């Protein structure tokens, strides 16, 4: 097996999942966004999005802040420095592979 093929196994599995990749890619281009924005952009349902966000938060890739916009609850999400590094690393590896 050559090194290129072996490198596929070293890909970050947290980011590699398409749903989470969408979220991380979106958050990488913004300072912060709320749950509704991600919901609209990714067109996932609330449950799926919540589950992906929890997985990313567990991995320390995103920061979740619960706040209020007036009287409406708002969940603000941003990529942490660890998440940004992980996403940059993932992109580099994918470029090498493809």
């Amino acid at each position, binding site marked *: 097996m050559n090194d290129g093929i072996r490198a596929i196994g070293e890909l970050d599995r947290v980011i590699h999942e398409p749903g989470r990749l969408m979220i991380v890619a979106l958050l990488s281009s913004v300072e912060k*966004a709320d749950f509704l924005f991600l919901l609209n952009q990714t067109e996932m349902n609330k449950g799926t999005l919540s589950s992906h966000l929890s997985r990313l938060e567990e991995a320390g890739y995103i920061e979740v802040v619960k706040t209020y916009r007036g009287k409406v609850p708002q969940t603000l999400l941003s990529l942490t420095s660890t998440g940004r590094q992980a996403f940059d690393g993932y992109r580099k590896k994918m470029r090498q592979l493809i």
Partner: protein
Amino acid sequence: MCAVIHYGTRAIKQRITFPRTGYVEYRKRDTVWLPMILGACVSAMVAAAVSIGMRSHWNLTSVASLTGVLFAVSYAWRIARSVQWKWIVAVLLAASSLVVGLLPASALDALIGDSLVTPSHMPTQAFAAVWLCMTAYGVLTLISGSISFWLYPRRTQPPAPEGE
């Protein structure tokens, strides 16, 4: 005017856009120097070209018209590609520029008349062409923006309030 644009945009986003499409704060540019230097270079080149053109008695009416066509192309590239009906605006922008470029000198002279104060050293016909083009772009983009503003709340609805 700047304050109206700044605070007006913010108020519209908070009251209309964010409740529908969600809140987003885009990353600030890492550096502002490159766009500033590029902008200064382009401005200097345009100013030099206009200055040379005026001294050499070039036909600046065509230049104003050409600038309009370039504006229409950039509008089509940046905006009309993502919003289909805005192609009409891009076409109208280009058409209005071409019409201004094709207007006879007598029509431009008649337009200027005594109603506009032309800057010193600037040929009156060229000034009339620039004034006409700018007015056309202003009116067209204002109408297009108003239509977008009218359509947006009708096409998007805020989600029903519930826990996230």
